[in-house]
C-alpha cells in the first residue's frame, strides 16, 4: 500500500535554511519520524499565515505533503511557542545551543522519541528555571545517552575497576573516567574534581526535578561546562557554533 499523500506530525523547529527569495527549508525534530526536512513557500513574506508557527525554537503541529525530493509544509499550528525563550537574550542563545546540538548529533529519518521528549523538556525547563547552566549540562549528558555516547562515570574505562572517591581523570577519546593509575597512560585526559564527578553522576542518573533542587558554585559550574564541551567537541570533530556566541555574550554582557 502506498503512503498517504499528506501527513501530520508534532515538531520542534531546529533549523531554517533560506532558499531563493521568500522560501525556507525547515529542519524539524519530531517524536516518531526523527529529524526531517521540509520546504515552505513564501514564508518570509509579512502576510504568510504559517511564518509565526514556523520559527526556530517553536513546538508546532505541522501538516506536510509528500514531494519527490522534499516534503512541502501545507499548514502549521503552534503548540508551545516557548515565549520566555524568545524574550530573553540569554535564553534565546541557550535554546539555539540546544537545537544546534540536536541537529549535529542526529541523522535524518532516524526516530528517537526519547530524544524528542528530552528536547521538549529542556525547552520547558529553560522557560521555567533559574538554574540555566545546570539545565544545559543535564541536556548535554542525556543527549549523549540518547545518541549512544553515554560517558562512563562510575568505573575506570581502562581497567574497569570502580572509581575511588579521589580526583580521577576524564578522557574524551575513551568516553569516560580513568583512575589515577590508568590516566598516566592517557595524555589527552584531564583531572576532574571530586565534586564535579559527583554532580555529573547525579545529573546522569536523575531527572529535571533534581536539577531544580541542585545548587552549585560558579567555579564548579565552569568545570562541568569545560569537561562536557570538550567531550562534545571531540565527538563532533568541530566547534559548536552557538557555543562561540555564548562565549562572546559572556565577555560583553554582564
Amino acid at each position, binding site marked *: 500500500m502506498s503512503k498517504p499523500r499528506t501527513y501530520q506530525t508534532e515538531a520542534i523547529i531546529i*533549523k531554517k535554511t533560506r532558499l*531563493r*527569495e521568500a522560501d525556507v527549508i525547515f529542519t524539524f525534530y519530531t517524536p516518531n519520524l526523527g529529524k526531517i526536512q521540509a520546504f515552505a513557500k513564501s514564508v518570509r513574506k*509579512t*502576510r504568510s*499565515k504559517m*511564518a*509565526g*508557527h514556523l*520559527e*526556530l*525554537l517553536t513546538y508546532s503541529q505541522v501538516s506536510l505533503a509528500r514531494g519527490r525530493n522534499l516534503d512541502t509544509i501545507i499548514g502549521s499550528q*503552534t503548540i508551545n*511557542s516557548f*515565549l520566555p525563550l*524568545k524574550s*530573553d*537574550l540569554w535564553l*534565546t*542563545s541557550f535554546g*539555539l*545551543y540546544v*537545537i*544546534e546540538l540536536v*541537529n549535529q548529533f542526529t541523522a535524518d529519518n532516524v526516530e528517537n522519541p526519547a530524544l524528542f521528549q528530552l528536547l521538549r523538556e529542556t525547552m520547558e525547563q529553560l522557560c521555567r528555571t533559574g538554574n540555566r547552566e545546570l539545565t544545559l549540562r543535564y541536556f548535554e549528558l542525556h543527549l549523549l545517552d540518547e545518541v549512544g555516547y553515554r560517558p562512563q562515570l562510575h568505573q575506570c574505562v581502562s581497567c574497569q575497576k570502580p572509581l575511588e572517591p579521589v580526583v580521577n581523570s576524564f578522557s574524551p577519546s575513551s568516553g569516560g573516567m580513568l583512575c589515577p593509575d590508568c590516566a598516566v597512560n592517557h595524555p589527552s585526559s584531564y583531572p576532574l574534581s571530586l565534586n564535579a564527578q559527583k554532580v555529573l553522576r547525579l545529573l546522569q542518573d536523575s531527572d529535571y526535578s533534581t536539577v531544580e533542587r541542585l545548587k552549585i558554585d560558579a567555579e564548579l559550574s565552569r568545570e562541568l561546562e569545560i569537561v562536557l564541551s570538550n567531550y562534545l567537541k571531540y565527538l563532533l570533530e568541530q566547534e559548536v*557554533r*552557538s557555543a*562561540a*556566541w*555564548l562565549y*562572546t*555574550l559572556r565577555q*560583553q*554582557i554582564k
Partner: protein
Amino acid sequence: MDQNTLPHADVIDNLVQEFSKLPGIGPKSAQRIVFHLLRAGDEQSKYLAEAILSLKQKITLCSTCCNVTETDPCPICRNDRRDHSQICIVEQPQDILAMEHTGIYHGMYHVLHGAISPTEGIGTENIRVKELMERLKNGSVREVILATNPNLEGEQTAMYLSRLITPLGIRVTRLARGLPFGTELEYADDVTLTRAIEGRQDF
C-alpha cells in the same frame, strides 16, 4: 547530433547561463530575456550593460550609516533637514526603502548588513555593530530605534544591541510587534498575538 550540443551560438548560451544565476530567474525566463534583447533595439542592451557595470563601479557603502550609496556620505546622512538625533537600525539596505516609503520617519539610519545567527556562525563581528557603536560615541544621538526583522535572529540582534546601547544613556525603542494589516486574526501565531495584546493602545 550530440545531445549536449545546443543549436544556438555560444554567446547566447553564455548570456542565458548568466541570467539564470540571478534570483527568481530560471532557465526558461533567462532564455526569454536573452531572445527579447536580441530582437530589441541596440539601445536597450547598451543601457542595461552600462547600468549593470556602473552598479559595481559607483556604489559604495556610506561611511556613516553603511547604506549603499553613490556619494559618501549618503543623501540621507547629508540631509540637514532630517533629525540627526534618531537612528533607525535595519538589517538590509532594502529595509530603508520600505521605511522611507512610509514617509513618516525623518531620522537617520544604520544598516547592519545581516543579523546575529549563532547557529549559522554569524556573530557581532560579521555585522556592522562596531561602526554603530562608534557613531553613538559622540553623544548627539537621543534615540535608537531597533527595526531588525521580527524573527528569532532579528529579535536576538535587537536584544543584544539594547544591552550594549542602554548603558550609554540613549533611549532604545523597538518597532511595535503585532498584527500585520490585511491579515486575519485566526491565523496569527501565539508570539504575535501575545505581543499584540501586550502592546495594545487606547483607540
